[in-house]
């Protein structure tokens, strides 16, 4: 007997993780935008121009998977996070539009650059707020179905929003180290180093606040198999430290993959803390779609995902390498 619901849950997780990494560095590049001169901004845009459409598609995939595999969860979560969700979507529209127009504008370059930065920042912050709201609601067993349209404002939610801004900026700077060279690369590396430090501070803060605030999570974290957990945490942080050290030593790929590792750890931590609940006090099984839908979801994903991953990878491979002023994609 195959547990279709569990596979579907993993697929949703995978799609969201891919979105966070891929569009995350795109949004991060947007957040770093005001720190760059106008000629540097052009290079920044060139590094993400051929791939940002594809990256955003992962958000649609995450949504579609959630609709198809967990329609009940969807119908509760989405109205509950209505305002931050709509704001995020508006910001994503603004960002896409600003991106296209910034590349083609002449007189209004500065305006579209500001628009690109602001919309990237708002979209990221809203994503953090959504995450924070869901974690907060799950931890406090708030019934989301009755809290439709209510934005739970708390310091924790705010920290999540802020944390994600730093986190995406870290991903963005890691990406830019891979894609740029010369003075710009040195500059981005300096940002990357300080971002590593801020992200680690925020991470430690969240890991201290969460168990203090949420007894259920504290119980889960500190009750049994303490040594196994402790060694995993040590492994996790030493991974980040190695990436940080390699960043100082001018490594090309470690900064980016260190950031990916950081996200991967956070993902597992959230998953571990709340599994098998998808919503407050509602397990993923109780929210899963009927088998007629789940089988389509699972088999379609398992056959099509390798295919679409391969041509996404092909698109990245085609545009592999450093980008500079001479690299012209047009004509």
């Amino acid at each position, binding site marked *: 007997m195959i547990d279709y619901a569990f596979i579907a849950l993993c697929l949703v997780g995978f799609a969201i993780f891919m979105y966070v990494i891929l569009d995350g560095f795109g949004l991060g590049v947007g957040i770093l935008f005001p720190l760059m001169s106008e000629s540097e901004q052009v290079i920044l845009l060139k590094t993400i121009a051929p791939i940002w459409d594809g990256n*955003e*598609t992962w958000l649609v*995939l995450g949504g579609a998977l959630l*609709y198809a595999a967990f329609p009940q969860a969807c*119908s509760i979560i989405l109205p509950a996070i209505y305002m931050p969700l*709509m704001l995020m979507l508006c910001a994503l529209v603004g960002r896409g539009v600003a991106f296209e127009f910034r590349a083609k504008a002449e007189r209004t370059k500065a305006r579209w650059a500001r628009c690109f930065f602001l919309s990237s920042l708002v979209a990221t912050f809203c994503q953090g707020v959504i995450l924070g709201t869901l974690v907060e609601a799950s931890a406090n067993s708030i019934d989301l179905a009755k809290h439709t349209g209510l934005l739970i404002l708390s310091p924790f939610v705010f920290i999540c929003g802020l944390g994600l801004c730093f986190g995406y900026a870290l991903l963005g700077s890691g990406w830019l180290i891979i894609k740029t060279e010369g003075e710009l690369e040195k500059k981005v590396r300096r940002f990357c180093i300080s971002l590593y430090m801020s992200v680690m501070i925020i991470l430690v803060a969240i890991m201290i606040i969460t168990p203090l605030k949420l007894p259920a999570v504290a119980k889960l974290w500190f009750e049994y198999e303490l040594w196994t957990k402790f060694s995993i945490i040590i492994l996790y942080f030493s991974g980040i430290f190695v990436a940080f050290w390699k960043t100082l030593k001018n490594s090309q790929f470690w900064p980016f993959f260190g950031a990916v590792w950081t996200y991967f750890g956070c993902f597992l931590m959230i998953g571990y803390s709340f599994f098998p609940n998808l919503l407050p006090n509602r397990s993923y099984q109780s929210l899963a779609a009927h088998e007629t*839908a789940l089988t*389509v979801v699972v088999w379609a994903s398992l056959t099509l995902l390798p295919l679409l991953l391969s041509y996404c990878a092909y698109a990245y491979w085609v545009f592999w390498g450093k980008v500079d002023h001479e690299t012209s994609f047009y004509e």
Partner: protein
Amino acid sequence: MLVLSTEILSRLQFAFTISFHAIFPTLNIGLAVFLVYWEYQYLKTDSKFYLKLCQFWMKIFALSFGMGVVSGVVLAYELGANFSGLIAYAGNILGPLMLLETMTAFFLEAGFLGIMLFGWNRVGKRAHFLSTCMVSMGTVISLLWIMSANSFMQTPVGYKVFNNTLIIADSWIPVIFNPSFILRALHMLIATLLTTSFFVMGVSGYFFFKNKDVLFAKASFTPALYVALLLSILQVFSGDRVGLMVYKYQPIKTAAIEANWQTKNSAPLILFAIPDIKNRVNHFEISIPKLGSWINTRDLNGVLPGLESVKQEDLPPVAAVFYSFRVMVGIGLWFIFLASWGMYCKRRHQLVRQKLFLYAIMLSTPLGFVATIAGWMTSEMGRQPWVIYKIMRTKDSISNLPAEQVLTSLTIIFILYLFFFYSYLRFVRKVICEGFDKKSKVLLSSIGDSDD
């Protein structure tokens, strides 16, 4: 008196965002097909001329595609956020259809779009052509899935009710290939190609008018003209089949389209009227006897269903359905005339000199979009008050949100979208003003149509 309830606001927001979104895929699906043709010419002739032609249209394609992607993401999430009842009730069927669309179409488009737009120097000509084909294929596949999902909501079959709380697929093949899917998908595909060909002709007409880049404009105009003439005629037949299908499966929609209040034999075709929904009559009616029955039943004495059996609160917005249908058909007929006129001018080698025709073709550039959206309005408002025909009422699909929140999001979206659309038009104008060939403008601009 219009009360700004959550239902009204949610529907208004969805109608606005989807109409805005619809513009871009309509243009892109057609434009992608034309791009495949032009790039094939480039591959065959290996001439810089076709390369520049492709690159010009790709600039417009790129602008529109970006707009399409981001406005589409909004729709996907709006569906769950504002219409959570629909997802809870029919998510088991609509969800997998949307998932399949994402996996088979969106990734194909988005993955190869980068190579198509920016990869000219990075991949070989054949690989580039293949990428363009993939993008084009992706747009068409996307159209097929979304038409399937929407057609299921119009003519649902192959489902069964589970636990009295939701519907699940009994068998996927009838769900996907539901009775209205193929006809409506075909109708929409022709509509996108038709809209794009008039868009291409309108833009090319501007170059003829300005006597600038005339050779490029001609190479764009000619295939668009052939497509327009062929498809504008074909669309009459496809629309007719859709009409017969609607008569069979959604007779109330037919009655609303014809503004027919009483069921009757030998019903006239009403050309113009002001439907009065309160008193259930038409004012100022102009009609052709018996034609309404013939169009819908192929029999001059056939029975045309009326709205009499429908309770007042269950009536679709008759006037809106009636008018939007006539806007669509009117534009369709105008397109046949315009395409024939264009062909006549072309045969007599007078394209560049026929100022009146050039004016007409330029002014008709946006009409295809108007017709497409009007057609969608007919189709979507005609099935009200149902969101899934005869299964789920629209009012039951609405999320339990405070009206202020929806009003806030609607206001933000409305202002942002208008601003972005204005900017979009300005940038499209800029691309058009720069022309096909920035560098050797002098060389080509002075050539008239003497070689035609």
